[in-house]
């Protein structure tokens, strides 16, 4: 399927090859590690340190936005696995996120609340949400074997509508439209991450930020592991040329289904955690719009890159703030500031894709390569 086949990974790599500065490796292990150059290693370390400093510099509301952004980054990584790596465009991500959210809410929800809740601890409900969503993915996967491209996309979209119907009707679980329910209890190692009281000196925003950060780091590594292993390669093969992939021994059905299941697992844990942080949510949350938002994260961040997914998710999370910020500098005349904000949201997504179709990751590689090649240009 050529839908998402992007230009081969970009200017960057090309120029490395052409300009030829082969990085010396002395063993294959070294070649296979995550951060396989010194610069990358230093970069990662710097980034992690920075992430631990940030919470002490920002206000709580912004921290929560970032925390939610990091949590949705895991969902974006999941979508990138199925759509970016394996090339199966899914508009059904919202459904799997919903399945995860409700699984989490039921298992980890307040047993005395009005909705079904078992009050299980987080280390059970979080993975369980992933597993249940993955099972849903397993059921849907076989559709992907028969369908291609936009047909698959719209069919997965149908899933969102069917899911919406189920979520609306299963009122004991979801509360129904316009009513909603509470997410799971956010308590881990005896720390209540939802409490407004400071937790060992940390505000709620800070605590949630750290929770999200750790969550993201774990799943980003898992995502990266999948991507760099034979599984990730097989995904790429299925995406680029499925007949050729089959002929070299890749079982198409198995890998398409696996891609859906893995992606749904990521979606499931994201859903459960995200809505536990949000607090109250209703079936309307898992609409086409949510699916599209995730697709936008993947496309804006960069198809088939883990770090791109993270950047894309943070960008989409911050986008309302960005448009809010800009809108307040435009004098309102014809449009109210809110209409302006909403329009800017649309325009920024468009502008981004038009001017940098390779996504944030593309910008990043370009900057990196600029410095690599410095001071020589061609």
């Amino acid at each position, binding site marked *: 399927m050529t839908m998402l086949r992007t230009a081969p990974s970009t200017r960057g790599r090309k120029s490395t090859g052409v300009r030829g500065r082969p990085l010396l490796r002395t063993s294959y292990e070294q070649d296979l590690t995550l951060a396989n150059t010194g610069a990358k290693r230093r970069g990662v370390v710097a980034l992690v340190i920075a992430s631990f400093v940030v919470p002490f510099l920002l206000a709580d509301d912004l921290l929560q936005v970032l925390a939610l952004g990091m949590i949705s980054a895991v969902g974006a990584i999941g979508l990138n696995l199925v759509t970016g790596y394996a090339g199966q465009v899914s508009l059904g991500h919202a459904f799997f996120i919903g399945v995860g959210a409700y699984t989490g809410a039921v298992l980890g929800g307040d047993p005395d609340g009005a909705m079904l809740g078992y009050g299980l601890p987080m280390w059970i409900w979080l993975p369980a949400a992933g597993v249940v969503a993955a099972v849903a993915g397993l059921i849907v996967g076989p559709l992907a074997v028969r*369908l291609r*491209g936009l047909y698959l996309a*719209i069919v997965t979209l*149908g899933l969102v509508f*069917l899911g919406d119907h189920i979520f609306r009707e299963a009122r004991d679980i979801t509360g129904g439209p316009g009513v909603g329910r509470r997410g799971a209890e956010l308590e881990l190692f005896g720390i209540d991450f939802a409490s407004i009281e400071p937790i060992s000196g940390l505000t709620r925003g800070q605590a949630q930020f750290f929770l999200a950060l750790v969550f993201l780091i774990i799943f980003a590594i898992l995502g990266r592991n999948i991507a760099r292993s034979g599984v990730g390669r097989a995904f790429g093969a299925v995406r680029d040329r499925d007949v050729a992939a089959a002929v070299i021994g890749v079982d198409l059905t198995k890998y398409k289904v696996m891609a859906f299941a893995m992606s749904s697992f990521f979606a499931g844990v994201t859903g459960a955690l995200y809505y536990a942080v949000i607090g109250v949510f209703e079936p309307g949350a898992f609409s086409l719009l949510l699916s599209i938002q995730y697709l936008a994260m993947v496309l804006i961040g960069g*198809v088939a890159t883990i770090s791109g997914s993270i950047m894309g998710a943070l960008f989409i999370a911050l986008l309302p703030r960005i448009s809010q910020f800009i809108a307040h500098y435009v004098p309102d005349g*014809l449009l109210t500031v809110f209409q302006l904000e909403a329009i800017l949201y649309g325009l920024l*997504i468009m502008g981004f894709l038009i001017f940098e*179709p390779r996504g944030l990751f593309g910008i990043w590689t370009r900057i990196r390569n600029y410095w690599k090649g410095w001071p020589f240009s061609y």
Partner: protein
Amino acid sequence: MTTFLQSVLNGFAQGSIYALLALGYVMIYKATHVISFAQPALMVCGGLFGYHATSEWGLSFWPALIVAVLMGAVLGMLVERLALRPMVGKPVFTLAIITIGVDIVLRILANRYMGPDPRSVPYPSGSQRLEFWGLSISQQRLGLIVVTAVTVAALALFFRYAKTGLAMRATALNQETALAQGIRVGTMFALAWAIAGGLAAIAGTFVAATGAGMEQNTWIIALKALPAIIIGGLDSIPGAVIGGLAVGLVESITAVFQPDVAPWLGNNFALVAPYALMFLVLLVKPYGLFGTKEVERV
């Protein structure tokens, strides 16, 4: 029995709207292989053009419809030129997301124009209905069915006999090869969007002439065309029509009978029935009823 026939008739009439909307998607798909998520906004704008022409310029329905179609076509072209042309050759899903951006922007502007009130376009015969065999249908719906039939016929002829039709499809299949044959790819895109904008305007104007008219939430109707185009096959004109009508029928029949026949499916199952039908069709035909199968050969 009358209830059944009446619901078939209602579904048929509603299906005509979906068919028109589906045709818009198909036009864009045929030339670009993109699903345009901007169709809802184009429909809303088209309906508002019709509204403006009748209530502000004092035109009557039919001239207003023509004005709306022309303006819709121009709007479609503008969208293509400004937002999509710079992206020629980029992955189609990137383009699809861009159309979502377009949709957001246009809909906000339309809402700004509409304000809180529904806007309706008066149909010449008002709410008069035609009665026969114990069934009834509003004249406005009949008008819609006729207009749909004429439009479909015109488009089908265009694609059959005009070389532009073939050139449009060629463009979608492979832009470089199309360029090498001397096909003006940009013109094809613009044309497709213009037709899609015009079709959306017809649908929009009729929607605005129905019931409470066009309001801020009416855009959702356009999403019903998505299962329709999949059922019919993304690139097929007859497919769009049959898909649209099928969705209308299934929806109407389910709405009437499901609460009694299959209450366990839950409230308002009619809303998702088109998607259920879509799943069924795809299980048998992965490219919809009339879609072109993608060639895979090594």
